[in-house]
């Protein structure tokens, strides 16, 4: 099952960069910096007679040459992005331990000298297209049915960290190393707004930089953070309404019911309220966290999982404390 024997030094240097739950909600796929994807069975790990073995992956294979920075699940497939290429794996096949990719595609890069990494992927459900952003400063849009890369959104001056989609207006939000959050209309593929977060005094933290590494939206509200502090923006008035006093740089944030949960530097998951207060900081085993995922598709296995600079992925059944850890 293990494609490569992991020595203790390699386990020590492992970082988990991405996670994705299966469409049925019973499996979790996680990607690490060695290019491997591990599939864990949540139903086995959460069952009352779970043992040490159920916290190990049911399947572990090398998917890409470089680190797997982004994982995304559609209704039938798991999409993974490595160094410049996107591979799709059928969930049904993965559960049966068959690791043959359904397809592998590359966006059209301008230069063929460098192969830029892909940092973020999102699906636009309205026209069934896959939007990817990465190291070549551009956003590529691919049609899922035909596999053709139909458009490129240019505008960022440095690589793109994160992407987000606003369902109601059909807008794509992208955050990058150049410190700008750009909003694009997905139908006309034209830029609509550009917010330079580091120019706002209340958010800016020049000691960390101006890069934006996390984005999340909830109808009219947007969360963004990274070098500048994590802040909540009201998109209609394009103004920051609350700034969260979190010490480190945040790498992923989500809206959940009435809370905002974010992970980043520091071994904590922070629970914050919309007003700007940090309600709680829950300790985790990795020393810094890269990814947070919520399994909302399945009510039985409603868990939150976080991964970071450790070979362990913490699982929270009650979001206020760590229940147990899965390990690669």
């Amino acid at each position, binding site marked *: 099952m293990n494609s490569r024997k992991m020595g203790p030094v390699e386990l020590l240097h492992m970082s988990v960069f991405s996670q994705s739950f299966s469409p049925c909600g019973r499996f979790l796929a996680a990607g690490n910096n060695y290019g491997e994807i591990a599939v864990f069975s949540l139903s086995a790990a959460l069952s009352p007679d779970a043992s040490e073995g159920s916290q190990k992956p049911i399947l572990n294979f090398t998917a890409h040459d470089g680190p797997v920075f982004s994982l995304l699940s559609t209704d039938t497939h798991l999409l993974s992005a490595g160094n410049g290429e996107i591979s799709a794996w059928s969930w049904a096949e993965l559960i049966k331990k068959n690791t043959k990719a359904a397809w592998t595609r590359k966006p059209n890069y301008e230069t063929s000298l460098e192969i830029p990494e892909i940092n973020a992927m999102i699906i636009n459900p309205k026209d069934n297209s896959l939007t990817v952003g990465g190291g070549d400063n551009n956003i590529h849009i691919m049609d899922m049915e035909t596999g053709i890369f139909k458009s490129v959104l240019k505008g960022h001056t440095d690589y793109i960290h994160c992407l987000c989609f606003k369902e109601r207006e059909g807008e794509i939000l992208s955050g990058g190393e150049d410190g700008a959050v750009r909003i694009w209309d997905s139908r006309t593929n034209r830029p609509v707004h550009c917010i330079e977060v580091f120019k706002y005094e209340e958010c800016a933290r020049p000691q960390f930089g101006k890069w934006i590494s996390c984005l999340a939206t909830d109808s009219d509200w947007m969360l963004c953070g990274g070098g500048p502090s994590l802040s909540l923006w*009201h998109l209609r008035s394009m103004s920051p*309404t*609350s700034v969260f006093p979190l010490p480190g740089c945040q790498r992923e944030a989500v809206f959940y*019911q*009435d809370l905002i949960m974010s992970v980043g530097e520091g071994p904590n998951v922070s629970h914050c309220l919309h*007003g700007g207060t940090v309600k709680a900081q829950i300790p985790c085993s990795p020393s810094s966290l890269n990814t947070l995922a919520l399994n909302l598709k399945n009510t039985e296995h409603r868990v939150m999982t976080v991964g970071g600079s450790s070979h362990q992925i913490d699982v929270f059944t009650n979001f206020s404390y760590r229940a147990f850890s899965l390990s690669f």
Partner: protein
Amino acid sequence: MPFCESFEQLGRFHNSLLGVSDAPFVPKGFLNEVIRKRLLIDGDGAGDDRRINVLMKSFSKWCHSNFSPEEGFSQYQRMLTSLAQCEFSMGKTLLVYNMNLKEMENYEAIYADIETSITSAHEKIAECKKEIQRAKRIRKNRQEYDALARVIKQHPDRHETLKQLEALDKELQQLSHIKENVEDKLELRKKQFHVLLTTIQELQQTLENDEKMDSDDTQESLMDNGD
């Protein structure tokens, strides 16, 4: 014998408790014997059974053998006491049986009560969960409202700004009025000066012309006189 049936039932029950059924290494007959021996040694039913047998034997002995009247009477008394004892124990077991029946009924009632309270507790839990969801939504909305209100408060009041704008407008109007007046005055003065200057120039011209004419006249008259 009625006891044999119950022994068999007990034996089967014992088997099922042990989790064996027709298992070869624990024969049913052996278990039955064990249970039978246990009940005979410990159970109260053994004492009564023996007493009834003894009574029957002593009765038949009393009927058939020849006793002296005193001995016969004492035997008779003994039999009566043992009969009374048997009746007493029978009454006792009947009462215990009724008590057990009543306890069963009581337990059934309690069981039904607990069932209903469990279902109502489940319902309450579901209600409370819905309430919590609602409360969370309300809290989120309040927080969003507060956040927006804070931003709006930072900007100045609309009425104030409108008033300021009106005042500034009025000032502007007044000043432009004044400017117009001043310009009109300037125009008028310019025109007046212009008129004055042109009349002076004309007068100068006429005076010069007059002078010239005068000098011409005198020259002509001198020339006339010379001729």
